[in-house]
Protein backbone atom coordinates (compact mmCIF):
# COMPACT_ATOMS: atom_id res chain seq x y z
CA UNK A 1 0.00 0.00 0.00
CA UNK A 2 2.53 2.54 1.04
CA UNK A 3 4.94 2.00 -1.94
CA UNK A 4 2.15 2.55 -4.42
CA UNK A 5 1.03 5.77 -2.78
CA UNK A 6 4.57 7.07 -2.65
CA UNK A 7 4.99 6.17 -6.33
CA UNK A 8 1.91 8.11 -7.18
CA UNK A 9 2.88 10.96 -4.92
CA UNK A 10 6.45 11.40 -6.07
CA UNK A 11 5.81 12.42 -9.70
CA UNK A 12 3.21 14.87 -8.59
CA UNK A 13 5.70 16.61 -6.35
CA UNK A 14 8.57 16.48 -8.84
CA UNK A 15 6.80 17.12 -12.15
CA UNK A 16 4.02 19.35 -11.03
CA UNK A 17 5.46 22.68 -9.96
CA UNK A 18 3.58 25.10 -7.78
CA UNK A 19 1.14 27.42 -9.60
CA UNK A 20 3.32 30.49 -9.02
CA UNK A 21 6.44 28.77 -10.38
CA UNK A 22 4.49 27.68 -13.45
CA UNK A 23 3.35 31.21 -14.03
CA UNK A 24 6.90 32.50 -13.73
CA UNK A 25 8.16 29.87 -16.19
CA UNK A 26 5.44 30.71 -18.66
CA UNK A 27 6.20 34.42 -18.42
CA UNK A 28 9.86 33.70 -18.98
CA UNK A 29 9.07 31.60 -22.05
CA UNK A 30 6.91 34.42 -23.31
CA UNK A 31 9.74 36.94 -22.88
CA UNK A 32 12.22 34.67 -24.65
CA UNK A 33 9.86 34.21 -27.55
CA UNK A 34 9.38 37.94 -27.92
CA UNK A 35 13.09 38.66 -27.62
CA UNK A 36 13.81 36.19 -30.40
CA UNK A 37 11.03 37.63 -32.51
CA UNK A 38 12.43 41.15 -32.07
CA UNK A 39 15.88 39.95 -33.11
CA UNK A 40 14.41 38.52 -36.29
CA UNK A 41 12.36 41.66 -36.82
CA UNK A 42 15.46 43.81 -36.50
CA UNK A 43 17.10 42.50 -39.65
CA UNK A 44 13.85 42.56 -41.59
CA UNK A 45 13.23 46.08 -40.33
CA UNK A 46 16.68 47.18 -41.37
CA UNK A 47 16.18 45.81 -44.87
CA UNK A 48 12.81 47.47 -45.11
CA UNK A 49 14.29 50.74 -43.85
CA UNK A 50 17.02 50.65 -46.47
CA UNK A 51 14.45 49.97 -49.15
CA UNK A 52 12.28 52.86 -48.01
CA UNK A 53 15.18 55.32 -47.96
CA UNK A 54 16.37 54.11 -51.38
CA UNK A 55 12.88 54.38 -52.81
CA UNK A 56 12.12 57.82 -51.38
CA UNK A 57 15.40 59.35 -52.53
CA UNK A 58 15.22 57.64 -55.91
CA UNK A 59 11.71 58.96 -56.35
CA UNK A 60 12.88 62.47 -55.51
CA UNK A 61 15.73 62.10 -57.97
CA UNK A 62 13.45 60.87 -60.74
CA UNK A 63 11.16 63.88 -60.29
CA UNK A 64 14.00 66.09 -61.52
CA UNK A 65 15.61 63.72 -64.00
CA UNK A 66 13.40 61.81 -66.44
CA UNK A 67 13.82 58.07 -66.00
CA UNK A 68 14.66 57.58 -69.67
CA UNK A 69 17.53 60.07 -69.40
CA UNK A 70 18.76 58.21 -66.35
CA UNK A 71 18.53 54.69 -67.75
CA UNK A 72 19.55 55.31 -71.35
CA UNK A 73 21.75 58.40 -71.21
CA UNK A 74 25.33 57.78 -72.25
CA UNK A 75 27.00 60.50 -70.22
CA UNK A 76 27.41 60.54 -66.46
CA UNK A 77 28.64 63.92 -65.26
CA UNK A 78 26.49 64.76 -62.22
CA UNK A 79 29.16 66.86 -60.56
CA UNK A 80 29.92 69.03 -63.60
CA UNK A 81 28.59 72.51 -64.21
CA UNK A 82 26.26 71.09 -66.86
CA UNK A 83 25.33 67.83 -65.25
CA UNK A 84 24.30 64.78 -67.25
CA UNK A 85 22.63 61.84 -65.55
CA UNK A 86 22.96 58.94 -67.98
CA UNK A 87 23.83 55.90 -65.88
CA UNK A 88 24.95 53.67 -68.75
CA UNK A 89 28.69 54.35 -68.35
CA UNK A 90 28.51 53.20 -64.73
CA UNK A 91 26.46 50.14 -65.67
CA UNK A 92 28.91 49.31 -68.38
CA UNK A 93 31.89 49.71 -66.03
CA UNK A 94 30.21 47.37 -63.58
CA UNK A 95 29.38 44.83 -66.25
CA UNK A 96 32.89 45.00 -67.70
CA UNK A 97 34.70 44.40 -64.43
CA UNK A 98 32.24 41.69 -63.37
CA UNK A 99 32.56 39.98 -66.73
CA UNK A 100 36.35 39.88 -66.40
CA UNK A 101 35.94 38.51 -62.89
CA UNK A 102 33.60 35.80 -64.12
CA UNK A 103 35.94 34.87 -66.97
CA UNK A 104 38.58 34.24 -64.31
CA UNK A 105 36.36 32.66 -61.67
CA UNK A 106 34.20 30.36 -63.79
CA UNK A 107 36.80 28.04 -65.31
CA UNK A 108 39.08 28.12 -62.28
CA UNK A 109 36.22 27.66 -59.83
CA UNK A 110 34.60 24.92 -61.87
CA UNK A 111 37.84 23.01 -62.32
CA UNK A 112 38.66 23.20 -58.65
CA UNK A 113 35.12 22.07 -57.85
CA UNK A 114 35.55 19.08 -60.16
CA UNK A 115 38.86 18.29 -58.52
CA UNK A 116 37.48 18.60 -54.99
CA UNK A 117 34.29 16.69 -55.69
CA UNK A 118 35.42 13.98 -58.09
CA UNK A 119 39.15 13.49 -57.67
CA UNK A 120 40.40 14.53 -54.23
CA UNK A 121 40.17 11.92 -51.53
CA UNK A 122 38.18 13.02 -48.48
CA UNK A 123 41.25 13.82 -46.43
CA UNK A 124 42.67 16.18 -49.05
CA UNK A 125 39.25 17.76 -49.47
CA UNK A 126 38.97 18.39 -45.74
CA UNK A 127 42.20 20.38 -45.88
CA UNK A 128 41.86 22.18 -49.20
CA UNK A 129 38.28 23.37 -48.93
CA UNK A 130 38.78 25.51 -45.81
CA UNK A 131 42.04 26.87 -47.19
CA UNK A 132 40.24 27.92 -50.35
CA UNK A 133 37.52 29.52 -48.28
CA UNK A 134 40.12 31.64 -46.48
CA UNK A 135 40.45 33.49 -49.79
CA UNK A 136 36.89 34.68 -49.24
CA UNK A 137 37.83 35.99 -45.81
CA UNK A 138 40.57 38.35 -47.01
CA UNK A 139 39.39 41.94 -46.54
CA UNK A 140 38.49 43.41 -49.91
CA UNK A 141 40.63 46.49 -49.27
CA UNK A 142 43.62 44.17 -49.34
CA UNK A 143 42.48 42.83 -52.68
CA UNK A 144 42.08 46.40 -53.88
CA UNK A 145 45.67 47.35 -53.16
CA UNK A 146 46.81 43.97 -54.44
CA UNK A 147 45.16 44.87 -57.75
CA UNK A 148 46.52 48.41 -57.82
CA UNK A 149 50.07 47.85 -56.60
CA UNK A 150 50.86 44.32 -57.77
CA UNK A 151 48.59 42.92 -60.46
CA UNK A 152 48.34 46.06 -62.60
CA UNK A 153 52.14 46.73 -62.62
CA UNK A 154 52.78 43.09 -63.54
CA UNK A 155 50.16 43.25 -66.29
CA UNK A 156 51.64 46.50 -67.60
CA UNK A 157 54.80 44.60 -68.50
CA UNK A 158 52.89 42.29 -70.85
CA UNK A 159 49.89 44.38 -71.90
CA UNK A 160 50.92 47.51 -73.81
CA UNK A 161 48.83 50.58 -73.20
CA UNK A 162 47.45 49.43 -69.86
CA UNK A 163 46.69 52.47 -67.72
CA UNK A 164 47.53 52.59 -64.02
CA UNK A 165 43.84 52.50 -63.26
CA UNK A 166 41.94 50.04 -65.43
CA UNK A 167 39.21 47.39 -65.47
CA UNK A 168 41.50 44.44 -66.19
CA UNK A 169 43.55 44.26 -62.97
CA UNK A 170 40.63 44.72 -60.57
CA UNK A 171 38.56 42.34 -62.69
CA UNK A 172 41.15 39.58 -62.38
CA UNK A 173 41.59 40.15 -58.66
CA UNK A 174 37.83 40.17 -58.17
CA UNK A 175 37.73 36.87 -60.01
CA UNK A 176 40.20 35.46 -57.50
CA UNK A 177 38.06 36.80 -54.71
CA UNK A 178 34.84 35.12 -55.87
CA UNK A 179 36.59 31.91 -56.91
CA UNK A 180 35.99 30.21 -53.53
CA UNK A 181 32.32 31.05 -53.79
CA UNK A 182 32.09 29.47 -57.23
CA UNK A 183 34.09 26.40 -56.33
CA UNK A 184 32.48 25.82 -52.96
CA UNK A 185 28.90 26.14 -54.18
CA UNK A 186 29.59 24.18 -57.36
CA UNK A 187 31.19 21.45 -55.33
CA UNK A 188 28.14 21.31 -53.06
CA UNK A 189 25.98 20.93 -56.15
CA UNK A 190 28.19 18.14 -57.53
CA UNK A 191 28.26 16.35 -54.18
CA UNK A 192 24.48 16.36 -54.34
CA UNK A 193 24.52 14.23 -57.49
CA UNK A 194 23.61 10.69 -56.45
CA UNK A 195 26.52 8.30 -56.22
CA UNK A 196 24.59 5.82 -58.35
CA UNK A 197 24.98 8.00 -61.42
CA UNK A 198 28.75 7.95 -61.09
CA UNK A 199 28.76 4.21 -60.59
CA UNK A 200 26.56 3.77 -63.65
CA UNK A 201 29.05 5.76 -65.67
CA UNK A 202 32.13 3.98 -64.31
CA UNK A 203 30.46 0.63 -64.91
CA UNK A 204 30.25 1.49 -68.60
CA UNK A 205 33.99 1.99 -68.76
CA UNK A 206 34.02 5.77 -68.34
CA UNK A 207 37.06 7.50 -66.90
CA UNK A 208 36.81 9.93 -64.02
CA UNK A 209 37.04 12.89 -66.40
CA UNK A 210 34.31 11.53 -68.68
CA UNK A 211 32.13 10.85 -65.66
CA UNK A 212 32.72 14.33 -64.26
CA UNK A 213 32.12 16.20 -67.49
CA UNK A 214 29.36 14.12 -69.07
CA UNK A 215 27.35 12.90 -66.10
CA UNK A 216 28.06 14.81 -62.90
CA UNK A 217 28.34 18.28 -64.44
CA UNK A 218 25.10 18.09 -66.45
CA UNK A 219 23.30 16.54 -63.48
CA UNK A 220 24.47 19.37 -61.23
CA UNK A 221 23.85 21.98 -63.89
CA UNK A 222 21.17 24.06 -62.21
CA UNK A 223 23.09 24.07 -58.92
CA UNK A 224 26.26 25.17 -60.67
CA UNK A 225 24.39 27.86 -62.58
CA UNK A 226 23.00 29.11 -59.30
CA UNK A 227 26.55 29.29 -57.94
CA UNK A 228 27.67 31.28 -60.98
CA UNK A 229 24.82 33.74 -60.66
CA UNK A 230 25.43 34.23 -56.97
CA UNK A 231 29.10 34.88 -57.72
CA UNK A 232 28.16 37.36 -60.45
CA UNK A 233 25.91 39.18 -58.06
CA UNK A 234 28.76 39.34 -55.57
CA UNK A 235 31.06 40.74 -58.26
CA UNK A 236 28.53 43.38 -59.25
CA UNK A 237 28.13 44.52 -55.67
CA UNK A 238 31.86 44.47 -54.89
CA UNK A 239 33.08 47.95 -54.04
CA UNK A 240 36.51 48.29 -52.50
CA UNK A 241 38.57 46.66 -55.25
CA UNK A 242 37.11 48.79 -58.02
CA UNK A 243 37.04 51.96 -55.94
CA UNK A 244 40.77 51.58 -55.33
CA UNK A 245 42.10 50.15 -58.56
CA UNK A 246 39.71 50.84 -61.44
CA UNK A 247 39.85 54.63 -61.51
CA UNK A 248 36.93 57.04 -61.21
CA UNK A 249 36.14 57.95 -64.77
CA UNK A 250 32.67 56.97 -65.94
CA UNK A 251 33.26 55.90 -69.50
CA UNK A 252 31.10 54.05 -71.96
CA UNK A 253 33.63 51.53 -73.22
CA UNK A 254 34.38 47.84 -73.54
CA UNK A 255 38.10 48.59 -73.38
CA UNK A 256 39.47 46.97 -70.21
CA UNK A 257 42.76 48.85 -70.39
CA UNK A 258 41.55 52.33 -69.49
CA UNK A 259 40.17 53.78 -66.25
CA UNK A 260 36.44 53.27 -65.73
CA UNK A 261 34.01 53.67 -62.89
CA UNK A 262 31.50 51.19 -61.57
CA UNK A 263 28.20 51.96 -59.86
CA UNK A 264 29.63 50.99 -56.48
CA UNK A 265 32.77 53.06 -56.94
CA UNK A 266 30.65 56.06 -57.85
CA UNK A 267 28.65 55.73 -54.65
CA UNK A 268 31.89 55.64 -52.65
CA UNK A 269 33.22 58.66 -54.50
CA UNK A 270 30.20 60.80 -53.79
CA UNK A 271 29.69 59.70 -50.22
CA UNK A 272 33.32 60.50 -49.43
CA UNK A 273 33.12 63.93 -51.06
CA UNK A 274 31.48 67.07 -49.75
CA UNK A 275 28.26 66.84 -51.69
CA UNK A 276 25.60 68.56 -49.57
CA UNK A 277 22.70 66.46 -48.37
CA UNK A 278 19.39 66.89 -50.15
CA UNK A 279 20.86 68.09 -53.44
CA UNK A 280 20.34 66.41 -56.76
CA UNK A 281 23.97 65.27 -56.84
CA UNK A 282 23.48 63.69 -53.45
CA UNK A 283 20.38 61.87 -54.61
CA UNK A 284 22.21 60.31 -57.53
CA UNK A 285 23.85 57.83 -55.21
CA UNK A 286 20.45 56.58 -54.08
CA UNK A 287 19.27 56.21 -57.65
CA UNK A 288 22.43 54.30 -58.54
CA UNK A 289 22.11 52.29 -55.34
CA UNK A 290 18.55 51.39 -56.20
CA UNK A 291 19.61 50.17 -59.62
CA UNK A 292 22.40 48.14 -58.05
CA UNK A 293 20.04 46.70 -55.49
CA UNK A 294 17.48 45.70 -58.10
CA UNK A 295 20.17 44.07 -60.23
CA UNK A 296 21.74 41.95 -57.50
CA UNK A 297 18.37 41.19 -55.95
CA UNK A 298 17.11 39.91 -59.29
CA UNK A 299 20.19 37.74 -59.72
CA UNK A 300 19.83 36.32 -56.23
CA UNK A 301 16.20 35.47 -56.93
CA UNK A 302 17.15 33.61 -60.09
CA UNK A 303 19.88 31.79 -58.19
CA UNK A 304 17.52 30.78 -55.37
CA UNK A 305 14.95 29.59 -57.90
CA UNK A 306 17.54 27.48 -59.69
CA UNK A 307 18.77 25.95 -56.45
CA UNK A 308 15.21 25.11 -55.48
CA UNK A 309 14.67 23.38 -58.79
CA UNK A 310 17.89 21.49 -58.31
CA UNK A 311 16.77 20.21 -54.93
CA UNK A 312 13.53 18.98 -56.44
CA UNK A 313 15.35 16.90 -59.01
CA UNK A 314 17.31 14.92 -56.46
CA UNK A 315 15.19 15.11 -53.37
Amino acid sequence: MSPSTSLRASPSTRLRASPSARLRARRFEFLIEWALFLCALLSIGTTAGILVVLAVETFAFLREVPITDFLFGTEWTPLFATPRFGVLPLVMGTVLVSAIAMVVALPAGLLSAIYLSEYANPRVRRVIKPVLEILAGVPTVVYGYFALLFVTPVLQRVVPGLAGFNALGPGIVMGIMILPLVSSLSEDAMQGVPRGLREGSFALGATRMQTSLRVVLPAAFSGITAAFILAASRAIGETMIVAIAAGQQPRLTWNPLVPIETMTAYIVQVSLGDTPQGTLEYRTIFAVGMLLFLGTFGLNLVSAWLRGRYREEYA
Partner: protein
Amino acid sequence: MSTAAGPTVPSLSGVAARAGQQTPAADRPVKIDAQHLNFYYGDTRALEDISVRIRRNIVTAFIGPSGCGKSTFLRTLNRMNDIIPGTRVEGKVLIDDTDIYGPGVDVVALRRQAGMVFQKSNPFPKSVFDNVAYGLRINGMASNRSELAGRVEESLKQAALWDEVKDRLDDSALAMSGGQQQRLCIARALAVRPDILLMDEPASALDPIATQRIEELVYDLKKAYTIVIVTHNMQQAARVSDYTAFFWLGRLVEYDRTDKIFTNPSEKLTEDYVTGRFG
Protein backbone atom coordinates in the same frame (compact mmCIF):
# COMPACT_ATOMS: atom_id res chain seq x y z
CA MET B 1 13.59 -17.11 -79.27
CA SER B 2 11.96 -20.47 -78.87
CA THR B 3 13.96 -21.93 -81.72
CA ALA B 4 17.07 -21.98 -79.56
CA ALA B 5 18.06 -25.33 -78.20
CA GLY B 6 17.70 -26.02 -74.51
CA PRO B 7 15.32 -24.44 -72.05
CA THR B 8 12.70 -22.10 -73.42
CA VAL B 9 10.28 -21.00 -70.76
CA PRO B 10 11.20 -20.18 -67.18
CA SER B 11 9.11 -22.40 -65.01
CA LEU B 12 8.02 -21.16 -61.65
CA SER B 13 7.38 -24.58 -60.29
CA GLY B 14 10.02 -26.66 -61.91
CA VAL B 15 13.24 -26.25 -60.00
CA ALA B 16 13.53 -30.02 -59.85
CA ALA B 17 12.10 -30.48 -63.32
CA ARG B 18 14.87 -28.39 -64.77
CA ALA B 19 17.52 -30.39 -63.04
CA GLY B 20 18.00 -32.56 -66.12
CA GLN B 21 18.74 -29.54 -68.27
CA GLN B 22 21.38 -28.30 -65.86
CA THR B 23 23.84 -31.03 -66.57
CA PRO B 24 25.29 -29.48 -69.72
CA ALA B 25 25.97 -26.30 -67.77
CA ALA B 26 28.62 -28.12 -65.79
CA ASP B 27 30.50 -28.83 -69.01
CA ARG B 28 30.56 -25.28 -70.26
CA PRO B 29 33.88 -23.45 -70.20
CA VAL B 30 34.70 -21.44 -67.10
CA LYS B 31 34.10 -17.72 -67.60
CA ILE B 32 34.89 -16.27 -64.19
CA ASP B 33 37.28 -18.01 -61.84
CA ALA B 34 37.83 -16.41 -58.43
CA GLN B 35 40.70 -17.89 -56.47
CA HIS B 36 41.16 -17.33 -52.75
CA LEU B 37 39.77 -13.84 -52.90
CA ASN B 38 39.96 -11.64 -49.81
CA PHE B 39 38.53 -8.17 -49.72
CA TYR B 40 39.06 -5.43 -47.15
CA TYR B 41 37.29 -2.18 -46.35
CA GLY B 42 40.13 -0.52 -44.48
CA ASP B 43 41.01 -3.06 -41.80
CA THR B 44 37.72 -4.91 -41.98
CA ARG B 45 37.76 -8.10 -43.98
CA ALA B 46 34.52 -8.21 -45.94
CA LEU B 47 35.27 -11.29 -48.04
CA GLU B 48 37.15 -14.30 -46.80
CA ASP B 49 38.90 -16.69 -49.13
CA ILE B 50 36.26 -16.86 -51.84
CA SER B 51 36.89 -19.40 -54.57
CA VAL B 52 34.26 -19.98 -57.19
CA ARG B 53 34.07 -20.98 -60.86
CA ILE B 54 31.28 -19.46 -62.89
CA ARG B 55 30.61 -21.05 -66.24
CA ARG B 56 29.74 -19.41 -69.51
CA ASN B 57 26.14 -18.61 -70.51
CA ILE B 58 24.47 -19.62 -67.33
CA VAL B 59 22.77 -17.58 -64.63
CA THR B 60 24.38 -17.66 -61.22
CA ALA B 61 22.53 -16.26 -58.23
CA PHE B 62 24.26 -14.93 -55.13
CA ILE B 63 22.07 -15.23 -52.05
CA GLY B 64 22.62 -14.56 -48.37
CA PRO B 65 21.55 -12.19 -45.60
CA SER B 66 22.30 -8.47 -45.75
CA GLY B 67 25.94 -7.66 -45.22
CA CYS B 68 27.10 -11.18 -46.14
CA GLY B 69 29.37 -9.87 -48.89
CA LYS B 70 27.44 -10.96 -51.94
CA SER B 71 27.25 -7.47 -53.42
CA THR B 72 30.85 -6.77 -52.49
CA PHE B 73 31.92 -9.93 -54.28
CA LEU B 74 29.84 -9.01 -57.33
CA ARG B 75 31.57 -5.65 -57.43
CA THR B 76 35.02 -7.20 -57.32
CA LEU B 77 34.19 -8.88 -60.63
CA ASN B 78 34.29 -5.61 -62.58
CA ARG B 79 36.51 -3.78 -60.09
CA MET B 80 33.77 -1.36 -59.12
CA ASN B 81 35.15 -1.36 -55.60
CA ASP B 82 38.23 0.41 -56.94
CA ILE B 83 36.38 3.71 -56.73
CA ILE B 84 35.83 3.32 -52.99
CA PRO B 85 38.84 4.70 -51.12
CA GLY B 86 40.56 2.43 -48.63
CA THR B 87 39.58 -0.91 -50.16
CA ARG B 88 42.00 -3.71 -50.92
CA VAL B 89 41.87 -7.03 -52.74
CA GLU B 90 43.96 -10.16 -52.27
CA GLY B 91 43.79 -13.20 -54.48
CA LYS B 92 42.84 -13.58 -58.10
CA VAL B 93 39.83 -13.21 -60.31
CA LEU B 94 40.35 -14.74 -63.72
CA ILE B 95 38.01 -13.75 -66.49
CA ASP B 96 38.72 -15.76 -69.64
CA ASP B 97 41.93 -16.88 -67.94
CA THR B 98 43.23 -13.34 -67.39
CA ASP B 99 43.66 -12.07 -63.85
CA ILE B 100 41.68 -8.84 -63.74
CA TYR B 101 43.71 -7.70 -60.73
CA GLY B 102 46.98 -8.47 -62.51
CA PRO B 103 49.37 -5.78 -63.73
CA GLY B 104 48.55 -3.93 -66.91
CA VAL B 105 44.84 -4.71 -66.86
CA ASP B 106 42.72 -2.12 -68.64
CA VAL B 107 39.90 -1.42 -66.18
CA VAL B 108 37.94 0.42 -68.84
CA ALA B 109 38.00 -2.64 -71.10
CA LEU B 110 37.13 -4.87 -68.15
CA ARG B 111 34.08 -2.82 -67.25
CA ARG B 112 32.98 -2.84 -70.85
CA GLN B 113 33.28 -6.61 -70.88
CA ALA B 114 31.45 -7.04 -67.57
CA GLY B 115 28.40 -4.79 -67.63
CA MET B 116 26.61 -3.93 -64.41
CA VAL B 117 23.04 -3.22 -63.41
CA PHE B 118 22.42 -1.69 -60.01
CA GLN B 119 19.86 -2.15 -57.29
CA LYS B 120 18.52 1.34 -57.65
CA SER B 121 18.01 2.13 -61.31
CA ASN B 122 20.35 4.96 -62.18
CA PRO B 123 19.51 6.42 -65.57
CA PHE B 124 21.43 9.58 -66.33
CA PRO B 125 19.37 12.77 -66.44
CA LYS B 126 19.46 12.64 -70.22
CA SER B 127 17.16 11.42 -72.96
CA VAL B 128 16.40 7.72 -73.43
CA PHE B 129 18.57 7.69 -76.53
CA ASP B 130 21.51 9.47 -74.89
CA ASN B 131 21.40 7.08 -71.95
CA VAL B 132 21.90 4.06 -74.18
CA ALA B 133 24.33 5.90 -76.44
CA TYR B 134 26.47 7.05 -73.50
CA GLY B 135 28.70 4.00 -73.29
CA LEU B 136 29.06 3.86 -77.06
CA ARG B 137 30.08 7.48 -77.21
CA ILE B 138 32.61 7.49 -74.40
CA ASN B 139 34.21 4.35 -75.75
CA GLY B 140 34.15 5.61 -79.33
CA MET B 141 32.24 2.52 -80.40
CA ALA B 142 30.13 4.03 -83.16
CA SER B 143 31.70 5.80 -86.09
CA ASN B 144 28.63 7.66 -87.28
CA ARG B 145 25.14 8.69 -86.34
CA SER B 146 23.33 5.85 -88.07
CA GLU B 147 25.56 3.19 -86.58
CA LEU B 148 24.96 4.75 -83.16
CA ALA B 149 21.19 4.77 -83.72
CA GLY B 150 21.33 1.17 -84.89
CA ARG B 151 23.14 -0.01 -81.80
CA VAL B 152 20.84 1.95 -79.53
CA GLU B 153 17.84 0.31 -81.16
CA GLU B 154 19.42 -3.13 -80.97
CA SER B 155 20.18 -2.69 -77.26
CA LEU B 156 16.70 -1.44 -76.46
CA LYS B 157 15.25 -4.43 -78.28
CA GLN B 158 17.47 -6.80 -76.35
CA ALA B 159 16.25 -5.23 -73.15
CA ALA B 160 12.63 -5.63 -74.31
CA LEU B 161 12.07 -1.92 -74.11
CA TRP B 162 12.07 -0.83 -77.74
CA ASP B 163 8.35 -1.09 -78.38
CA GLU B 164 7.60 1.04 -75.35
CA VAL B 165 10.06 3.84 -76.05
CA LYS B 166 10.64 3.92 -79.80
CA ASP B 167 8.39 6.97 -80.16
CA ARG B 168 9.92 8.89 -77.29
CA LEU B 169 13.64 8.35 -77.55
CA ASP B 170 14.19 12.06 -76.98
CA ASP B 171 12.17 12.20 -73.77
CA SER B 172 13.95 12.33 -70.45
CA ALA B 173 14.74 8.91 -69.03
CA LEU B 174 13.67 10.18 -65.62
CA ALA B 175 10.07 10.38 -66.82
CA MET B 176 9.86 6.59 -67.29
CA SER B 177 8.44 4.13 -64.78
CA GLY B 178 10.75 2.35 -62.36
CA GLY B 179 10.63 -0.90 -64.29
CA GLN B 180 11.31 0.86 -67.58
CA GLN B 181 14.21 2.74 -66.01
CA GLN B 182 15.74 -0.52 -64.86
CA ARG B 183 15.37 -2.08 -68.31
CA LEU B 184 16.88 1.09 -69.75
CA CYS B 185 19.87 0.56 -67.48
CA ILE B 186 20.10 -3.01 -68.77
CA ALA B 187 19.95 -1.71 -72.35
CA ARG B 188 22.65 0.80 -71.51
CA ALA B 189 24.86 -1.95 -70.16
CA LEU B 190 24.20 -4.18 -73.19
CA ALA B 191 24.99 -1.41 -75.67
CA VAL B 192 28.74 -1.69 -75.18
CA ARG B 193 28.47 -5.43 -75.94
CA PRO B 194 29.67 -7.03 -72.74
CA ASP B 195 29.77 -10.80 -72.40
CA ILE B 196 29.14 -10.76 -68.67
CA LEU B 197 26.19 -9.08 -66.98
CA LEU B 198 26.47 -8.39 -63.25
CA MET B 199 23.12 -7.56 -61.67
CA ASP B 200 22.97 -6.25 -58.12
CA GLU B 201 19.43 -6.88 -56.87
CA PRO B 202 18.02 -5.51 -60.12
CA ALA B 203 14.38 -6.03 -59.19
CA SER B 204 14.33 -5.33 -55.47
CA ALA B 205 12.74 -1.91 -55.93
CA LEU B 206 10.21 -3.02 -58.52
CA ASP B 207 6.62 -4.23 -58.37
CA PRO B 208 5.85 -7.90 -59.14
CA ILE B 209 4.97 -7.31 -62.78
CA ALA B 210 8.08 -5.28 -63.51
CA THR B 211 10.06 -7.90 -61.60
CA GLN B 212 8.66 -10.64 -63.78
CA ARG B 213 9.69 -8.76 -66.91
CA ILE B 214 13.22 -8.43 -65.60
CA GLU B 215 13.31 -12.14 -64.78
CA GLU B 216 12.08 -13.07 -68.26
CA LEU B 217 14.72 -10.80 -69.67
CA VAL B 218 17.43 -12.49 -67.62
CA TYR B 219 16.21 -15.80 -68.95
CA ASP B 220 16.46 -14.61 -72.56
CA LEU B 221 19.77 -12.89 -72.10
CA LYS B 222 21.63 -15.90 -70.77
CA LYS B 223 21.81 -17.32 -74.28
CA ALA B 224 24.29 -14.60 -75.09
CA TYR B 225 25.66 -13.55 -71.72
CA THR B 226 27.11 -14.97 -68.56
CA ILE B 227 24.88 -13.53 -65.86
CA VAL B 228 25.50 -13.13 -62.16
CA ILE B 229 22.57 -11.85 -60.15
CA VAL B 230 22.55 -10.84 -56.51
CA THR B 231 19.14 -11.26 -54.95
CA HIS B 232 17.46 -11.13 -51.59
CA ASN B 233 14.52 -12.96 -52.99
CA MET B 234 15.01 -16.72 -52.81
CA GLN B 235 12.06 -17.47 -55.07
CA GLN B 236 13.71 -15.26 -57.62
CA ALA B 237 17.00 -17.10 -57.26
CA ALA B 238 15.16 -20.39 -57.69
CA ARG B 239 13.30 -19.10 -60.74
CA VAL B 240 16.05 -17.49 -62.74
CA SER B 241 19.33 -19.15 -61.86
CA ASP B 242 21.10 -22.33 -62.86
CA TYR B 243 23.67 -22.14 -60.09
CA THR B 244 23.42 -20.54 -56.68
CA ALA B 245 26.09 -19.37 -54.29
CA PHE B 246 25.15 -18.87 -50.65
CA PHE B 247 27.22 -16.28 -48.78
CA TRP B 248 27.31 -15.86 -45.05
CA LEU B 249 29.47 -13.44 -43.03
CA GLY B 250 31.84 -12.83 -45.91
CA ARG B 251 32.35 -16.47 -46.69
CA LEU B 252 31.05 -18.59 -49.52
CA VAL B 253 29.22 -21.35 -47.69
CA GLU B 254 27.98 -23.37 -50.60
CA TYR B 255 27.97 -23.14 -54.36
CA ASP B 256 26.06 -25.66 -56.39
CA ARG B 257 23.27 -26.22 -58.87
CA THR B 258 20.27 -24.13 -57.87
CA ASP B 259 17.95 -27.13 -57.55
CA LYS B 260 20.43 -28.79 -55.23
CA ILE B 261 20.85 -25.69 -53.08
CA PHE B 262 17.12 -25.37 -52.66
CA THR B 263 16.15 -29.01 -52.29
CA ASN B 264 19.14 -30.82 -50.91
CA PRO B 265 21.92 -28.51 -49.74
CA SER B 266 25.10 -30.03 -48.34
CA GLU B 267 25.51 -27.48 -45.58
CA LYS B 268 23.22 -27.15 -42.59
CA LEU B 269 23.66 -23.36 -42.73
CA THR B 270 22.40 -23.25 -46.31
CA GLU B 271 19.43 -25.37 -45.46
CA ASP B 272 18.55 -23.15 -42.52
CA TYR B 273 18.76 -20.08 -44.71
CA VAL B 274 16.80 -21.32 -47.71
CA THR B 275 14.09 -22.74 -45.50
CA GLY B 276 13.79 -19.38 -43.79
CA ARG B 277 15.01 -20.42 -40.39
CA PHE B 278 17.17 -17.28 -40.20
CA GLY B 279 18.15 -14.29 -42.30
